[in-house]
Structures are given as structure tokens and as C-alpha cells.
């Protein structure tokens, strides 16, 4: 019988990296304070001991520089994983990710490829202030040539990271920093999870809650509260925002005819808009009401705890939205 342990999301990411680095000597990881320190979130502890400083490469604080180097290393035969400590620092690597990594394959007529992974964190409520709390994944989803992954459980994190590393394209992988300690079952034996396949985290019949990353737990919590009120909520996690499994989302929408989309990125011009639009396009005539979008409040993320908490979608908001939808 296959063994399944409970491990944290951080451990799951770490395991995926370790396994892939053992399997493929071309895989290496670079970033700030990742070697001896094992990253500031302590996710990569011990990696340098096994793989040495050349494959667990501590860099200067030069996000654009080492991301650009990863592009070149990927083109020439390595499979780099770039560690961007806080997703907020994505701002510094947009040129290398968007004008270089994402376009090299196409611009070269398919002749060069860029098999690299950019790992970054997202999520607020850590009291880290406006420059260390953003969830900027929507930007990357907007860019052809990139794939965008947002795992929400240890199981997904491990399986998707392995797929990301084996993918021949640049993949942007966002980890919710508040979820690193979240525990969940992860099989001991090898597995991968394909991109573009949404996961129904909970089945239900009255309302569909599409949730990403940190918001999956919120959605599941809301679903429990709703259950107590006799409302059956289905929770679906797209897991990859690009490719996006529109089919599963649309089918669920057709079934429940009421949909909420929850994402920790800013609500405006964010991921929820695309997901809501895709569902509306596919299930318009089955919907009882417009898809309800819930994202972060459109403000720079405040430091003060009561304010910060107010900016992030929570269970109550999801419950209220569901009840409103159900009239």
C-alpha cells in the first residue's frame, strides 16, 4: 500500500526540488540567502549540504541579473530554478521574464527554449508592509510564453513543482508564504501533476467557489460554514492559471449556476476578471447571477494589522457572497 505522510507545503516544495535535483544534474537553484540560510522562509534548509554551493547558488541582491542569467543558462542546457524571495520583487525581473524568457522560443522560430522556473511568494497578513505582501501573479498570466502555477496544498505544491521543473518553458511558480506550514498528505512515491487540470477540492451542488492559492483554504472554510446553513458549495482550484482549465470551471458553473471567484491578487484587472469572464462566456445561459469576484482591496497593502486584515478576502466575505448569490 503506498505510503502517505503528512508534510508541510514548505517541505513539499523542498522535496520536489531535491528529487528533481537528484534526478537531473542540470537542475540548479539560485537566489538570495538560499544556501546556508535555506531561504528566509527556511524552505531549502540543507539543500546546499547535499548539492553543494554550485547547485544551490547564493547570489548578490540582483534579481534582474540572476534571472537573466537563468534565462541564458536555460537556453544553453541547464534547468535553473530562480528564487525570488518576495513576489513583490517581480517588479525587478519583468524584463528578463517577459521580454526575454517568455519570448525567446517564439522569436527564434522555436529554435531556442528556456526551461526555467521562477519561484516567488505571494500573500498578505504577515505584517510585512506594502512592498512585501503583494500577489502579482496576474501580470504573468497576461504574458504569452509563460505558464503560471499557484499550488494550494502540499500535494499540489510537490507535484506541480516537479512538472514545472520538467517543463521546457519558463514557468512562474507562486507559493503563499503564509501557507508554508500548512500540512497535508503527500505520497512517498513519485508523482507529478499535469498543468491545466483544475482540482475539485470539495464537491457541491449549490454554488461554485473558484479559489486560488491562499484562498483555497478560505474557500474551504467558507464551504464548511455554508454547509452548516444547508448550502452545498463546490470548491475548485485551477492550480495553474495558465494554462487554465476552463472546461472544469465551466462545467461546475453549469451545474451550480452560481459562481464566486476568490483570489488574493488585487480585485481590479486581476486574475478573477479573467476567470469570471471565461466562466461567463462558457456558462452564461446557465448562470442565475453574474459571477461574483472577490480579490484583495484595491489599496497598497497597509501595515497596521486591523487594516491589513481588512484588505484580504476572508471566509465571511465568501459566505456573504454565496448567500447573496443564493438570494
Amino acid at each position, binding site marked *: 500500500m503506498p505510503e502517505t505522510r503528512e508534510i508541510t507545503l514548505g517541505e513539499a516544495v523542498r522535496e520536489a526540488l531535491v528529487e528533481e535535483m537528484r534526478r537531473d544534474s542540470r537542475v540548479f537553484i539560485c537566489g538570495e*540567502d538560499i544556501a546556508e540560510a535555506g531561504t528566509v522562509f527556511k524552505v531549502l534548509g540543507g539543500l546546499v549540504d547535499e548539492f553543494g554551493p554550485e547547485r544551490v547558488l547564493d547570489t548578490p541582491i540582483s534579481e534582474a541579473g540572476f534571472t537573466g542569467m537563468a534565462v541564458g543558462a536555460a537556453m544553453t542546457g541547464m534547468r535553473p530554478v530562480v528564487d525570488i524571495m518576495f513576489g513583490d520583487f517581480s517588479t525587478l525581473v519583468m524584463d528578463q521574464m517577459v521580454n526575454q524568457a517568455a519570448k525567446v522560443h517564439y522569436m527564434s522560430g522555436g529554435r531556442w527554449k528556456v526551461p526555467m522556473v521562477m519561484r516567488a511568494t505571494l500573500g498578505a497578513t504577515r*505584517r510585512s508592509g506594502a512592498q512585501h505582501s503583494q500577489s502579482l501573479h496576474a501580470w504573468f498570466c497576461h504574458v504569452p510564453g509563460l505558464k503560471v502555477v499557484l499550488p494550494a496544498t502540499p500535494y499540489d505544491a510537490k507535484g506541480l513543482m516537479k512538472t514545472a521543473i520538467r517543463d521546457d518553458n519558463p514557468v512562474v511558480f507562486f507559493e503563499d508564504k503564509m501557507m508554508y506550514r500548512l500540512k497535508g498528505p503527500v505520497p512517498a512515491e513519485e508523482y507529478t501533476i499535469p498543468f491545466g487540470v483544475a482540482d475539485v477540492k470539495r464537491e457541491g451542488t449549490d454554488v461554485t467557489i473558484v479559489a486560488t492559492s491562499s484562498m483555497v483554504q478560505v474557500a474551504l472554510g467558507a464551504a464548511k460554514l455554508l454547509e452548516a446553513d444547508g448550502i452545498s458549495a463546490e470548491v475548485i482550484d485551477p492550480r495553474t492559471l495558465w494554462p487554465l482549465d476552463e472546461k472544469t470551471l465551466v462545467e461546475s458553473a453549469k451545474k451550480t449556476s452560481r459562481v464566486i471567484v476568490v483570489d488574493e491578487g488585487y480585485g481590479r484587472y486581476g486574475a478573477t476578471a479573467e476567470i469570471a469572464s471565461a466562466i461567463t462566456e462558457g456558462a452564461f445561459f446557465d448562470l442565475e447571477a453574474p459571477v461574483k469576484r472577490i480579490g484583495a482591496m484595491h489599496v497598497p497593502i497597509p501595515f497596521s494589522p486591523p487594516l491589513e486584515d481588512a484588505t484580504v478576502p476572508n471566509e465571511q466575505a465568501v459566505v456573504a457572497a454565496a448567500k447573496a448569490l443564493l438570494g
Partner: protein
Amino acid sequence: MAIAVDRLQTAPEAEIDQWLRMYRRMLMIRLFEEQVNDLYTRALMPGLAHLYIGEEAVAVGVCEALRSDDYITSTHRGHGHCLAKGARLDRMFAELLGKEAGYCKGKGGSMHIADPDTGNLGANAIVGGSAGIATGAALTAKRMKTGRVAVCFFGDGAMGQGLLYEVMNMASLWKLPVIYVCENNLYGEYTSNVETLAGDMLTRAAGFAIRGESVDGQDVRKVHAAATQIVERVRAGAGPAFLVCNTYRFMGHHVGDVNREYYRSKQEEQLWKTERDPIKLLGDWLGAQNLTDRARLEQLRIEVKSEVEQAVQFALAAPYPGPDKVDQDVYA
């Protein structure tokens, strides 16, 4: 040094006041930061903070050379800069606790303290992120002929950010009154800069035709002497300057960084703490020169300690911003 001694002979009273003022300011930063650490340990502070303990001579030595309307930009390790530029203890604490009475109404937090009244353009949680802002402030000063200078504080880690070189180039081309002050405390987070810095920092500035010098950042008199000369030169229109202050943070990268032996030894820390404490060094010198006595310094400590305590009490008792405040101040 030579300068300081000269001045002592000509204007000893004013000089002594200045030394004591700097001593007091360093002490204020030290006790503020100790209090911050205490708040963290007692779980009274949200989030983390990056303490300036051990580096006080840099902020104080430099800011003492500035006019109150001169500009500074600061970093994630910014409390010292803010206080040295004239920030009030109570509003600092209040900001760190996310209270409405804070400098930023609680919206900024430890890494974003800003204050127009003291010329503080803001701390910055993006390493190197304020280099453009400081340089732009210098552009304004030059265009508007205000005679102000802008000081950009940053850590040795920021030498890794390309932005710094982009703005150094422009500051040099346009002879802007900006001073880049690198606080070289040997580490960026948990990584020694031996691993992250190729070549020599002063040569980097020289590559942009910017005059650079380095100074013992634990000796506030030396920092102040160097800064005074530089500020004068820069204010007079000589163009930007680069000053490396060699220093050390006595504590962890942030308040939660307690076990540090995997990246630096206890001996190293001990050596700096006992031999190179900027406050002790100035106190000892003042004593040795007979410019003050232990009692006076002790008296100062008691005063500052009580100010700090009052301030923290104020902040602890202060209210959080009301929920209606969350979406204010997004747009001017």
C-alpha cells in the same frame, strides 16, 4: 580627526555640545531599538523589524552634518536614520505598532517610515529602491536652487542592484547634490558580502567619476568629519559623492534572527560589541579628553531611557486606525 581637534581648540563649548548631542542621539537610537526588540520578544509588535544597533554612528554622524531641510532616504533598517534626522520617538513607536498616531498613520510600518517635516523621503523595503528617489530629490534641489542636499542611505547589499549605477551615472553627469552613503556592515541578511561583492566599492563609484571615500563607521567623529566635508562640497555644487561607512550590526538581520552562528561567529560579534561599540567609543573619548564625566553620560542615559519609555507607553496605549481608514490615502 585633525579637524575635530582643531575645532575643539577654537570653539570647545559648541563642539562639546555637539559631541554630547551626537552621543545622546546615538543612545536614543540604541534604547529605541532595544525597546523594539523587547516589544517583539513580548509579542507586542506586529511583524518584524531590522535593528540598527551597532550602526548608530553612521546615521548620527551623517545627519548631524545636514540641515534640517536636507533630504534623506532610508532602508528596511531605517529607524536610526529617521531618529537621527529628527523623528520623534512616540510617533516612531506608534508606527511600528500600526497605530494611527504613527508617522504614516500605521499604514507604513517599520520599513516605510517617512516624514516631510524632517526631510525624510521614506524608508524603503526594496533593497536599493530609494536610490532613484534620493537622486530625484537632488535634481529638485538643483533646479529649484534650494541649496538642499539629499543623502541616500543603503546597505552593502544594495551594491548588487543595478538601479544604483544608473542613477550614479546621471547624478554625476548632472552634478546633482546627492550623497550615496553605503553602510557596509559586512552582511546582507545571512550572507557575507565576501560572497556577493566583486572588486572594490570605491572604484565602482570612480567608474562614474564620483569621488568616494571610506570611513570607520564606528567612530562618529570620523563619520561626522567626513560627512561635513562632503556635504559642504556637494552643497557647493561639486556633484555627487559616495561614502562607505564600515560598520556592523550587533543583532540579527531582523529581530527574529537569533541563531546566527551558521553565517557569522559569536567571537566576531563579541569583538565588535566590546571593541567597536560606537556609543562606548565616543563616551570613552569624551572621558579621556575630560570633556565630560561618567555622571553626565549616565544622566543622559536616564533621561533618554525615560523618554523612550514614555514614548512606548504612548504608542502602546494609542488606538489603531479605524476600519474606514483603509482605503483613504490611496490617491492624493
